C-alpha cells in the first residue's frame, strides 16, 4: 500500500522528479542573483568606472556567476553567452592580446552596446574586465581614459547578457524543462531527457572544477603552472573552486529524490579541505601544496562516484555529451 501511494505521488508529479526542484530552488534564484549583481556592476561603472571603485561590485558579480556557470544548457549556450561571460581557460592568451588590442586602438566599438556585443569573447566578460581592474600595467587608468570606457562597456554588456539569461530561463527554458516529453516539446522528447540534461550539467561541472580549475594550475609534477590559475589576478582561484562546489551541491540536492548521504559527505570533505588551500593556488608549485591539491581532486572524484550512484542511478540517467568533450 505504501508503495502504491508512492507510485501515485510520482505519477502525479508535474515533471520528472528533481527537475522541478532544480528549477525553483537552484536555477531561477541564481539567474536572478546574477542579473542583480551585474546590474549593480553596470550602475557602479556608469557612476565611476575607475578600477578601485569597480572591484567590489566585480567580485560580487563573479560570485553570482559561479552560481550559474555550470548550467551549460539553454540560455547559457544561446549566442555563446557562457563563453562571452567567462572565457576561461584561455589556452592561447587571447584575453591579454584582445584587451591590449582594444586599448591600443582605442576602438570606438565601446560606444555602442549593439556593436560591443559583436566583439571577440576574449575582449568581453569577466576575464577581460579582470585585466582592466587587476593588471597593474592597466588598472591605474583615470576616469577620462579609454580603459574606463571599455570597463563600462564590459559591465553593461555583462548586465545585458545576465538579463537575457534570467528572462529566458523564467519565461521560456524553465517551461521547456517542465514540459519535457509533452507534445510540442522538441527539445526534450521524454521527461527523462530533462533530468539527464541537468544531471549532465552536474557531472560536467564537477569534472571542470577538478580537471580545469585545479588541474590547469597543477600542470605536471615537473612543470607546475600556478600562473594558469583561474582569475588569479583578482585573487579568486580558490574561491571559484569553493563556490562552484557549493553551487553543484545545491544542484545535486535539488536533483536528489531520496537521501544522499555519500554525496553529502563527499561534498563536505571536499569543501573542508578546499578551505585550507592557497587563495590563488600558487603553492601547487611546492610539494605540500601540490599534494593537497591532488587530494582535493580525489575528493571531487569521490563526489563524482557518489553522485553517479545516488543520483544518476535513482534518476535512471547517465550523463550525456557535454561542451567540454574534445581536447
Amino acid at each position, binding site marked *: 500500500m505504501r508503495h502504491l501511494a508512492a507510485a501515485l505521488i510520482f505519477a502525479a508529479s508535474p515533471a520528472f522528479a528533481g527537475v522541478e526542484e532544480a528549477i525553483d530552488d537552484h536555477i531561477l534564484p541564481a539567474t536572478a542573483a546574477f542579473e542583480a549583481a551585474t546590474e549593480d556592476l553596470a550602475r557602479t561603472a556608469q557612476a565611476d568606472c575607475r578600477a578601485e571603485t569597480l572591484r567590489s561590485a566585480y567580485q560580487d558579480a563573479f560570485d553570482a556567476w559561479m552560481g550559474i556557470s555550470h548550467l551549460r544548457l539553454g540560455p547559457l549556450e544561446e549566442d555563446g553567452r557562457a563563453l562571452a561571460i567567462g572565457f576561461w581557460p584561455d589556452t592561447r592568451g587571447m584575453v591579454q592580446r584582445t584587451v591590449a588590442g582594444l586599448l591600443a586602438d582605442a576602438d570606438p566599438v565601446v560606444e555602442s552596446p549593439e556593436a560591443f556585443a559583436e566583439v571577440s569573447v576574449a575582449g568581453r566578460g569577466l576575464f577581460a574586465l579582470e585585466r582592466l581592474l587587476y593588471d597593474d600595467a592597466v588598472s591605474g587608468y583615470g576616469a577620462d581614459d579609454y580603459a574606463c570606457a571599455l570597463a563600462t562597456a564590459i559591465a553593461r554588456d555583462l548586465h545585458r547578457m545576465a538579463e537575457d539569461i534570467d528572462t529566458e530561463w523564467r519565461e521560456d527554458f524553465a517551461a521547456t524543462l517542465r514540459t519535457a516529453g509533452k507534445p510540442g516539446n522538441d527539445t526534450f522528447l521524454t521527461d527523462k531527457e530533462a533530468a539527464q540534461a541537468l544531471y549532465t550539467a552536474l557531472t560536467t561541472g564537477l569534472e571542470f572544477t577538478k580537471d580545469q580549475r585545479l588541474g590547469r594550475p597543477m600542470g605536471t609534477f615537473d612543470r607546475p603552472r600556478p600562473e594558469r590559475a583561474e582569475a588569479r589576478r583578482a585573487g579568486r582561484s580558490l574561491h571559484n573552486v569553493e563556490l562552484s562546489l557549493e553551487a553543484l551541491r545545491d544542484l545535486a540536492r535539488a536533483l536528489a529524490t531520496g537521501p544522499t548521504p555519500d554525496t553529502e559527505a563527499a561534498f563536505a570533505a571536499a569543501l573542508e579541505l578546499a578551505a585550507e588551500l592557497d587563495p590563488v593556488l600558487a603553492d601547487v608549485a611546492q610539494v605540500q601544496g601540490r599534494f593537497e591539491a591532488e587530494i582535493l581532486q580525489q575528493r571531487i572524484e569521490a563526489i563524482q562516484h557518489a553522485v553517479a550512484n545516488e543520483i544518476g542511478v535513482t534518476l535512471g540517467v547517465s550523463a550525456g555529451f*557535454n561542451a567540454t568533450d574534445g581536447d
Partner: protein
Amino acid sequence: MRTTMTAVLALAAATPALAQSKGEVLATYADIAAAAYEDSLITARALDAAIQRLIAEPSAQTLQAAREAWLRARVPYQQTEVYRFGNPIVDDWEGKVNAWPLDEGLIDYVDASYGGATDQNRYAALNVIANPTFSLSGEDIDATEITPALLENELHEADAVEANVATGYHAIEFLLWGQDLNGTDAGAGERPWTDYATGEDCTGGNCDRRGDYLQAASDLLVSDLEWMVGQWAEGGAAREAVLSDEDAGLVAILTGMGSLSYGEQAGERMKLGVMLNDPEEEHDCFSDNTHNSHFYDGMGIRNVYFGEYVRADGSVVSGPSLSSLVAEADPQVDAALREDLNQTMIELGQLKTAAEAGFSYDRMLERGNEAGEALIMDAVNALVEQTRSIERAVAALGVDQIGFEGSDSLDNPNAVFQ
C-alpha cells in the same frame, strides 16, 4: 496455421540475430577504420613523394604540387577523426599527427606581428630551423641534425605546452604555406618556393634546414599512419578492443560520434572561432582549408552510422550498420538521427560551397560578418541537434548504464582519452 505464424513471428522477435548483428556492426566499423587509415597512409605517401620532389627540385611548381598533395591527404584523414574519442588507442596517438592549434614560431620564422614568447608558452618563438642549438626547459638541445627523433622526442609538446606542435599535418601545412597574414581577409599563407631554394636564391634563411625539417615531419607522418593502419588490421589492437566487448564497442562508436559532433567540432573548432573572431581559430589556418576539414569531419561521423565509406579510389566499404541496429530498437530514433546527420552535411556543404566560391572561412569569422556567422552557426546548431539524437540512440540501445559500472565511457568521455 495461425498459431504457427504467431510462433514464427515470436521467434523472429526473440531471435538472437540482434546479438549477432552487433558483432557485424562492429566489424563494419573496424573495416571502415582500416580503409580510412589506409587511404590516409596512401595519400600521405603521395604527399611524401611530392615533398621529396620539392626539396630535390625547388620550384613554384613542385611547391604547388606538394600543397595539392597535402589537401588530398586531408580528405581521408579528416574522415577518421570520428574514431578518436571512443578509442583510447587512437586518442593517445592522434596528437602526433593532428595536434592544433600551434605556435608556429617554434618551428620557423614568423612575422613581427606574431610577437614572441608568451605567459602560456616561453618557446612560442624558438625557431628551430634558424637555431641548431638551444636550451629547452633547462636542457641543452643539439638540433644540428633535424631528424624525426628530434621532432618527436624533444620538440613536440616541448615544455609540456600543447601549442608546441612540432609534428603532423599542421606542422607540414605551415612549412608548405607559411603564416596566413591576411587576418580576416581572404587569402592563405604565401610562403615563397624560394624558402626551399639552394644557395643564393634561398629566402627566409636556412633553406636546407627547412627542407630537413619538412622531410622529417613527412617521414614521421607516414610512419605514424603505418602504425595506425596496423592497429585496425585483422588482429590489430584497436580492432580487437572494439570487437572484444560488444556493448562497449557500441559505446565507443557513439562516444566518438557525440564527442566529435558536440564538444570538439561544434564547440572548440567552430563556435569558439566565431566567438573569438580569430582567424587562427581556423582548423586548417595556413592553407585556408578549414571548410573542408569541417566537412570531412562531418562526413566521417555519417560514415560510421550509415556503415558506408567511399574510399579515395572510389571503391566502397560497407556492411551492417549501426543505423540498422538502432532501427531495430527504435525506428523513430534511427530516422531522426539519419535525418540529422544528413542535415548537418547539407549545412557543412553550404559552408564549403560558399568558401570555395570565394567567401573564405577567415572572412566568415570577421567581427560583425552576419552572413559568415550564420553559415557557421547553422552548421554548429545542426551538429548540436545530431548530438541529442546520438544520446537518444545510446538510450535506445540500452548501453547508457555502462558508465555506472566504472567504465570510462559516456559518463566521463574525457577520461577515455586523457
